[in-house]
């Protein structure tokens, strides 16, 4: 059963198409990573899915229903980001009770456990928490609510590495125990790579691609060797990224649709085959220019 279906979804802000005919769908009980550059419309997309803002055109279906103003979508989904606002008059301890009243699948023990594990004080207030603590608290709410659709929009902002690790582990463990559809929008693809099952890459408001993480890992390869060797080996394939070292050694990333034997012969020609980190790959795929930051300096 498809939890989310988007067809030709468009959203314009001040005459700028933040989302431009975006179409994709997300299966039930999968953890999907939503990847894209800053300001490419990830948050906008998520807010449309959560029913906070309206789509300009196109169609969005969450639980086969239009999310905007839908109570059904609201009770079965939760949107966690650092803008999550709680009434200032309610202390943290009570926010957990309030959340318990609202969410049917709320797990009080899990919430209390995480709450104490990250040493929160039930009497303190949400607006006085540090950035990292806020993200951690919001994450606890997101996890413990156990909504069939849980959306995390850059949940780890401000979290230190240890907390991030705990978060990923807690997320996975709870996901294994109670599988649900999770959307993780993040910039640290390298960290969350293992958590994800699918990756949805957004570029210029469109779906660049949507594939499983294992496919993504083998989607492209890195060629390292003398410049002409690398060039003729890649013979006309689109080079996603290139970098020059030393005199004439070059590193290029190309789509991996080489045949097996061809790959084995590569080293005979002095070209080294290297795996490409999926987070780097996403960076290359979504970069406007082909080169790296050095090009800026090299041009002068």
């Amino acid at each position, binding site marked *: 059963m498809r939890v989310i279906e988007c067809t030709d979804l468009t959203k314009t802000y001040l005459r700028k198409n933040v989302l431009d005919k975006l179409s994709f769908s997300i299966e039930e009980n999968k953890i999907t990573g939503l990847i894209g550059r800053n300001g490419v419309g990830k948050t906008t997309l998520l807010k449309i899915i959560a029913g906070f803002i309206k789509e300009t055109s196109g169609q969005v279906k969450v639980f086969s229903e239009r999310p905007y103003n839908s109570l*059904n979508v609201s009770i079965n989904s939760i949107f966690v980001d650092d803008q999550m606002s709680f*009434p200032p008059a309610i202390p943290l301890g009570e926010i957990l009770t309030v959340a318990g009243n*609202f969410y049917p699948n709320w797990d009080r023990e899990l919430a209390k456990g995480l709450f104490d594990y990250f040493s929160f004080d039930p009497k303190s207030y949400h607006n006085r928490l540090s950035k990292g603590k806020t993200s951690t608290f919001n994450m606890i709410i997101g996890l413990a609510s156990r909504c069939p659709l849980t959306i995390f929009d850059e949940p780890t902002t401000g979290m230190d590495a240890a907390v991030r690790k705990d978060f990923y582990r807690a997320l996975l463990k709870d996901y294994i125990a109670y599988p649900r559809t999770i959307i993780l929008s993040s910039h640290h693809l390298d960290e969350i790579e293992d958590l994800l099952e699918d990756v949805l890459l957004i570029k210029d408001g469109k779906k660049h691609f949507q594939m499983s993480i294992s496919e993504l890992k083998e989607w492209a390869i890195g060629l390292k060797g003398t410049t002409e060797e690398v060039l003729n080996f890649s013979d006309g394939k689109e080079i996603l990224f290139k970098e020059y070292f030393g005199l004439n050694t070059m590193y290029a990333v190309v789509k991996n649709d080489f045949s097996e034997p061809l790959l084995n012969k590569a080293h005979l020609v002095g070209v080294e085959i290297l795996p490409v980190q999926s987070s780097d790959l996403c960076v290359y795929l979504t970069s406007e220019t082909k080169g790296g930051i050095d090009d800026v300096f090299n041009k002068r």
Partner: protein
Amino acid sequence: MSLTSVNLWETVKKQYFFKLKANIDAFSSLIGIQLLALLFSFGGVGSVGMGGGNFSINIKYYSADLVIGFTLIWAFVTAIVITTKPYRNHDFTFVTNRLSSSLSNILYLLTASIVGSITAILAGNLLKILAHILLDDQIYSFNTGLQELVMGIGVTILYVFFVTSIGYFIGTLVQESKLFIILIPVLFFGILFLEASMQKEPFLINVFKFYGMESTLFLFIIKVIVTVAVFFTAAISILNRMEVRR
């Protein structure tokens, strides 16, 4: 994972209690305002001076009018405040849609009106006692019967609720576009000024006559309820179209 179905009123009920818990401080400001009003109405709410042959009389009238007036202002402000962005966003952190958010707001405003009115009317008694103790003049009073007191509370609730509906409507307009912050006052004083210059009776007087002078209780109730319904439905329809947590 199985989806849970939900019904509107169940959510409204939960949100209502959530709102009461979240906005409890509004009631402490209510107390503050009413005490302030008591202080002001210490010198009497109205006074009349008369003279006969060899005597002069001046009478000070005491009533809870000022306290009710201040409560009205408090209610108006509270109504506007809960339409602002932070308060609406609080709803959207949890389970809601725009309709349930508005309905729970209205229920909250009704509670605020009830609590505000009861305390305002009872504050009248507090005023009498304080005046008796501090001014040690003899206080003459029509001991209003229980029925009158209760009717007074009822009517005050209607008045306060009436004011909250206007506040809620204006608050929603302001949320719709910030322009209204300037537009509404300009419109309001503009008309007054215009009517004054044309020697026409200002519309405010007509409004006051329409509600304030209505002496048949039944008609008054109908008028207020209809107006309240109109303002709230208008506000709800605007809010329903409004994006949130942009």
